[in-house]
């Protein structure tokens, strides 16, 4: 089981680092909003994986709240983005 923890943790971390790279480099603000969304999805998956591997349910509510409110940031960025905002 320790093998699974190491491999899955490395893959979650690599995906999150790729998303952070896109947040830093992203040519437009939409790329950044999308990469922040991906980072949040990976964080939710990592929380769930940690709960499943250690058999506790303490952060289940955190997952619920994140799934509920993840939508707010990206939608407000996309909705109020003016036409001339290139970056």
């Amino acid at each position, binding site marked *: *089981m320790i093998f699974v923890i190491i491999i899955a943790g490395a893959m979650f971390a690599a995906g*999150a680092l790729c998303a952070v790279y*896109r947040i830093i480099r992203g040519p*437009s603000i939409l790329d950044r909003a999308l*990469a922040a969304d991906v980072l949040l999805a990976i964080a939710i998956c990592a929380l769930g994986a940690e*709960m499943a591997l250690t058999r506790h349910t303490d952060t*289940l509510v955190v997952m619920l709240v994140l799934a*509920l409110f993840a939508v707010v940031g*990206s*939608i407000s960025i996309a909705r109020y983005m003016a036409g001339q905002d290139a970056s």
Partner: protein
Amino acid sequence: MSAGEIVVALLILLAGFLSLAAGVGIIRFPDVLTRLHAATKPQVLGLVAVLVALVIQVPTWGVLTTVILVMTFQLLTQPMTAHMIARSAYRTDHVRRDLLITDELARDIDDPALAIGRESDQEPSEHEMPRA
């Protein structure tokens, strides 16, 4: 390791692989619309795998109902996000048009038969996006 633990390990490895694939895709793909495609992997399938693993490990009614709630809200909200980002990307010209095979929205925008109601929106205010 019992059979249940092997299934849990495989599901968590699947979620990790999908997260990694989303990260690689979001770096390698050329524009916003293609990156939207990569972003969906951990948001839906990865989350399903992790939640099924969690239900297998902690099989109680409280966990099952909360897991169903999490999945429901994720499936309700993520399409809204993707739609708004894609709409905004199309209108602010962040789409690589040379990569598109067909663009049905451009054809419909140019169609005068569908232009009813657009005349009154010709002068968008400062804080309102122009209607396409």
